[in-house]
């Protein structure tokens, strides 16, 4: 499901694309390969929490 408000432009892309965007925003000159799956996983988790925050409240 597409996110309502995107934190990351590459949220619907591959892990490599998403992790590269996160690394660029965090100011890393390059992201070691071994960090890619975990960084992408955590970026998607943060997006889910923002989606949750943006959901209708009662």
């Amino acid at each position, binding site marked *: 499901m597409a996110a309502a408000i995107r934190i990351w432009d590459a949220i619907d892309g591959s892990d490599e694309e998403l992790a590269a965007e996160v690394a660029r925003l965090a*100011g890393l000159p390059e*992201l*070691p390969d071994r960090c890619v799956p*975990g960084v992408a996983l*955590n970026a998607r*988790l*943060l997006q889910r929490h923002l989606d949750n925050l943006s*959901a209708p409240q009662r």
Partner: protein
Amino acid sequence: MTDYIGTMGAVEIAQAVRTGQVRAVDVARASLDRICSRNGPVNAVTRILEERALAEAAAVEARVAAGEDPGPLAGVPYGVKDLFDVAALPTTAGAARLRDASPATADADVIVRLARAGAVLVATLNMDEFAYGFVTENACWGTTRNPHDLHRFAGGSSGGSAAAVAAGMVAFALGSDTNGSIRIPASLCGLHGIKPSHGSLPMVGVYPFAHTLDDAGAFAGSAADLALVDSAMRDEAGPAEPLTGIAMLGGWFRRNLSPEMAGALVALEEALGHPPTIELADVAQARSAAYLITAYEGGAVHRSALRTDPLSFDPATRDRLLAGAALPEWVYRKALGQRALFSAQIDARLAQHDVLIAPCVFGPAPLIDDAWIEIDGTRQPARANLGLYTQPISLAGLPVVAAPIAAAGLPLGIQLIAARGRDRELLAFAAELERQGLTAGRIVHSQEHA
């Protein structure tokens, strides 16, 4: 060597030392012996501070011998999570990359206060790296195991602190709580613990995680011991009247519980005379706000080091911190807005009820090798979800005491939540529950671990 620790609490040890019935140096040696004999399988301790402990104990003895007041915690041995500055030692915050950092030039302020009260520091204690975790799995120092069942987690991130007290190595310990890092391990290890009113204890010399949520606090076996330690850290003494108006938190806080926890809460309600149950709105959003605030603030602390040497971090925390370091400020601002709404809501509830009661954790400590829990019908990793009931409460900066339910089986804990500034009255309420036999700390006395 007399077995002072574990069989005597902080109150009893201090009383015995103050009256000259036992020597502070003997108590310190007993604590050091317990660490040597018990720490192996539990893995709670990262550094043993024998020289310092014996010197502090000797100083307490000298005060007793001179007829001076040795302080309310005279000769009581304790340990600190490895993120409190201890003079002349590197503050590692559980990070291998800080193992050889420059030594701290002074003790953290809370340690200074405890030293003034006569307490004796014997050890530094294991934690999740930079306090970012709920299980105390550390790539450098290993996993801390639960003294009640070594196949299970002690909880985190202050897991070493909880396990050291529960295994009877020290009479109390300091930890820190951002999203549940005292309340969760206290619950899983059968102890009392407190996250105090936000900002009510000095954080000078405490390694930061998420500064708007971080608080230093203590673990102890009994509510009386916890109150004594808390009062020493505040330089406040004297009795406080216990809070009385109770309400149970329902809704979010009664879903996804294990049968053991669900049953224990029903039994507790009955024993308390069926207090009203109230529901807070938007708890899921509050938890998400806590998650995002933590990620943003935690990422900011480590952004510079992540840029230069990301592989020096524990993989379990590195990738979370990296994602947090890239969060834009507008996300943080949005989460802070949600925090303000939720805090106002819970403040309004605490204007109607003195104490709100909720579970600390879904149930007993998860197995290390099979750490899964059922959430809303799906199997989820326990590591990421142990904060389900503590994270939302953290947002409001309230004092929360974790209290161990008196029940058979593995330990289970509840959160006792009060309005800001009512810490001492809340501790008095926890002592009242303990007096009624509804809660009870559990120290593992046997040499044989489960």
